[in-house]
């Protein structure tokens, strides 16, 4: 359905620039096209920026845009559709919009669009509906200015909002019902971004650069690929095959063994030339169900944490493609917030002996001599660690965890239910242990601790605090953290230090390793990919959802044709 209904490419485009470009609109010239994969696993479904979880790649970031981007290296917001923004008082935020930005239908972009977008959140089913718990009102002071008035200023979360909400055109959307806003496929997107959708099919979405994009002049940026084809590969092996065939320029999949290829002569690059090859994107945790015995005992959880040989997982399962996490689990980008004193005093390391001692001290003994400790009441402990079936690396990791826990005397068996079954168990709290990593790098460790400590614990926990760990004080601290201004690093550090202490004392979840920002690039058509060395860009290396705002878009502007 997609292809035919998208606007035709501008006439100027047909002539192309390089002689090699074909005049056939049905066949994209290789040297002007970027082929990527690793973001979506099924057909592109819609161009609806509200559906951030299943809209076609680029809906947010390439087609629709946000007010700011976030520079992960400098740790600050970068104005995008907004020219600037500032807190005029504790609970009022004033946003200045950029001049001269136009929607793709030619209408000017104004404050009304921003107001409309945020007011959409008043609808119950809109993912950012929660914002309105602490946002009082949004007003367009004038065409270029928007004023947000808060009942409670959650500075950290607000920054997150600023670079995460796609702004939609009021003049197109204003009559849409809640159903349409949430479920609509938004077939002819009118947006501000640098690209427009050209077509989509079961396994791909094709974007075409808009040569009249406002950022060309205003930001002095131009993404280099005239076309972007994002391919939904069903599996890593296929991506690997295509990468080797040079049919792909970029794979954002986890490709096991890619280290061999990077070192070999295959024209593939990654961010680092040596382990861990990739930047870190998120933390994988071992989540114990703290409502169940004996995981309800912090001492037991600590012993469990000490029993896990993460280094072995990193080396054997991942072949050093990932890095062992710090005991805090905070991503390396958040190093400034790690309180080394707390870590050295209370942090944990892999030490089977210590794990055994912790168990013994806490009263877990192996009474029946089967090599495994029992509960204090003498009942057997037999824990099941679940990870989704088919997630090979996690399955191997789970096996490894089980092995090392057994060495410490804790009986853990790995089990691999189907993903949906696992989700159900996770939601209902019907599990012993699981592995999870559903918090990405963001502007603030707040999101990390929110995940760890959010209260209240409900009957069904959908996205956070799967451990069902209840600590009023910790949650209080998290909320305080939210209300620290984002430029107040010291203030943040103070609260985070306390949170870390609680984390170590209670071990509600056990950080294991950092998953990489999987990005393998082929240099056969495009070069100057992000890399650690020399003058290479340091911007975001993936096209995953939300990552265009974290530097992913900037990377596109720095690409160079391989021939140049």
């Amino acid at each position, binding site marked *: 359905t997609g292809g035919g209904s998208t606007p035709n490419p501008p006439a100027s485009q047909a002539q192309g620039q390089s002689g090699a470009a074909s005049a056939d609109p049905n066949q994209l010239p290789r040297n002007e096209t970027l082929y990527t994969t690793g973001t979506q696993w099924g057909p592109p479904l819609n161009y609806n920026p509200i559906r951030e979880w299943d809209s076609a790649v680029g809906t947010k970031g390439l087609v629709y845009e946000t007010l700011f981007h976030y520079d992960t290296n400098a740790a600050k917001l970068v104005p995008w559709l907004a020219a600037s923004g500032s807190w005029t008082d504790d609970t009022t935020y004033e946003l200045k919009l950029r001049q001269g930005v136009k929607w793709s239908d030619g209408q000017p972009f104004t404050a009304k669009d921003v107001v409309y977008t945020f007011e959409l959140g008043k609808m119950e089913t809109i993912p950012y509906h*929660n914002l309105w718990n602490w946002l009082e009102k949004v007003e367009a002071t004038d065409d270029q200015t928007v004023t947000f008035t808060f009942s409670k200023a959650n500075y950290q979360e607000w920054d997150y909002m600023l670079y995460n909400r796609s702004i939609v055109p009021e003049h197109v959307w204003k009559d849409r019902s809640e159903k349409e806003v949430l479920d609509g496929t938004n077939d002819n997107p009118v947006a501000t971004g640098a690209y427009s959708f050209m077509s989509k099919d079961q396994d791909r979405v094709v974007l075409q650069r808009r040569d009249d994009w406002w950022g060309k002049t205003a930001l002095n940026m131009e993404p280099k690929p005239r076309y972007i084809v994002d391919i939904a590969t069903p599996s890593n092996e296929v991506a690997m095959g295509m990468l080797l065939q040079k049919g792909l320029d970029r794979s954002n999949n986890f490709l096991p063994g890619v280290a061999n290829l990077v070192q070999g002569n295959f024209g593939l690059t990654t961010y680092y030339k040596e382990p861990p090859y990739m930047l870190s994107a998120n933390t994988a945790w071992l989540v114990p169900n703290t409502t169940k015995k004996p995981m309800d005992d912090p001492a037991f959880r600590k012993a469990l944490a000490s029993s896990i040989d993460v280094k072995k997982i990193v080396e054997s399962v991942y072949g050093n493609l990932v890095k062992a996490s710090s005991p805090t689990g905070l991503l390396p980008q958040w190093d400034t917030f790690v309180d080394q004193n707390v870590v050295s005093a209370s942090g944990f390391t892999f030490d089977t002996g210590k794990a055994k001692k912790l168990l013994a001290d806490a009263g877990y003994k192996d009474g029946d001599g089967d090599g495994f400790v029992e509960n204090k009441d003498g009942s057997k402990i037999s824990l099941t660690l679940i990870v989704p079936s088919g997630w090979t690396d996690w399955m191997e990791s789970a096996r490894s965890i089980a092995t090392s826990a057994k060495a410490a005397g804790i009986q853990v068996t790995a089990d691999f239910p189907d993903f949906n079954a696992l989700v159900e168990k996770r939601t209902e709290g019907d599990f012993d242990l699981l592995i999870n990593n559903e918090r990405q790098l963001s502007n603030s460790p707040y999101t990390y601790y929110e995940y760890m400590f959010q209260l209240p614990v409900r009957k069904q926990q959908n996205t956070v605090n799967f451990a069902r760990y209840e600590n009023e004080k910790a949650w209080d601290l998290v909320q305080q953290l939210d209300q620290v201004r984002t430029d107040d690093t010291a203030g943040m550090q103070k609260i985070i230090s306390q949170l870390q202490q609680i984390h170590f004392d209670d071990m509600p979840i056990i950080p294991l390793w950092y998953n990489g920002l999987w990005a393998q690039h082929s240099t056969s058509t495009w070069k100057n990919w992000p890399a650690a060395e020399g003058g290479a860009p340091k911007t975001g290396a993936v096209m995953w959802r939300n990552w265009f705002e974290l530097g992913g878009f900037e990377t596109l502007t720095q690409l160079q044709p391989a021939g140049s």
Partner: protein
Amino acid sequence: MRRYFSRKLLIYGLTFFVAVTVNWLIPRFMPGDPVAGMVARANVAQPEAVEAMRAYYNDLFGFDQPLWQQYLNFWGAMFRGDFGISIWLFPTPVSTVINGAVPYTLGLIIPSVLLSWVVGNRFGAYAARRKLLDNTVLPVGYVLTAMPYMWLAVLLAWALGVITGLFPVAGGYSFSMRPNWSWTFVLDLLHHWTLPFLSLFLVALGGWAIGMRNMIIYELESDYSNYLSALGAPARLIRRYAFRNAVLPQITGLALQLGVLVAGALVTEIVFAYPGLGSLILKAIQNQDFFLLQGTFLFIVLGVLIANFIIDIVYVVVDPRTRAGMAGAQA
């Protein structure tokens, strides 16, 4: 003849009904909640929003109704030609999803089934009772049929795709193309089709060749063959007759094979990232997409039944013996 057909139709209809009911039931008896999975994928942080979404989708898909009601709705909707909305590919209608995938799958299955059948039968017939060929064609045939589809597929992809670069390893057509009716596009389609086709074709080929070889040996030993050779008829004629008679059971085999081939195609499609029904089924399962599953199953059931029906008719036409009513006696 009329009676025969109406009876057949009745039986097929009943089979259809039961099969579809079973297919409807199976996903529903599985633990896990598709909406929960859907919501989980949305990865919405705020619990309230999650609850709202959950309620909204449960209502939308009718999961809040009693099971029997859902079942009735299902048949009702089906007769209206409405197969519901895919959960995984929300909000795409199931029919759209299937329509997009069916041409690829059919394009893969039909030629590979028919060609392997035709070629395999020829090979087998040719090899039978010829020592040299028998000792070459036969072992190759066994190796071919004994190969797991995916193993062959991956080897093909690697050898002819990655290493030699002769064929693409993924997709239904070039990622640089937009579907259109030009020769370049058609060639491109064929180019992408070749490897998946080949893997299905080769595996099936061996089976047919062997089946035919065994069958035709029986025929070559039969009374009518003996009679013809006693009258000095050349081997060519005898073989031709034997072939025709040996092919009849193979026709039944063809119908039996169809269902199995859907499964083979599934694996192949996954290996080659080919956008057919197979990949859909797997995804639908992984995402508990009841509606898409029902839709694809319905399609398969219909396909297999229709193929069987056609073959039933073809059989009556080509084999005079069935018309005389000895059908029960042969396989």
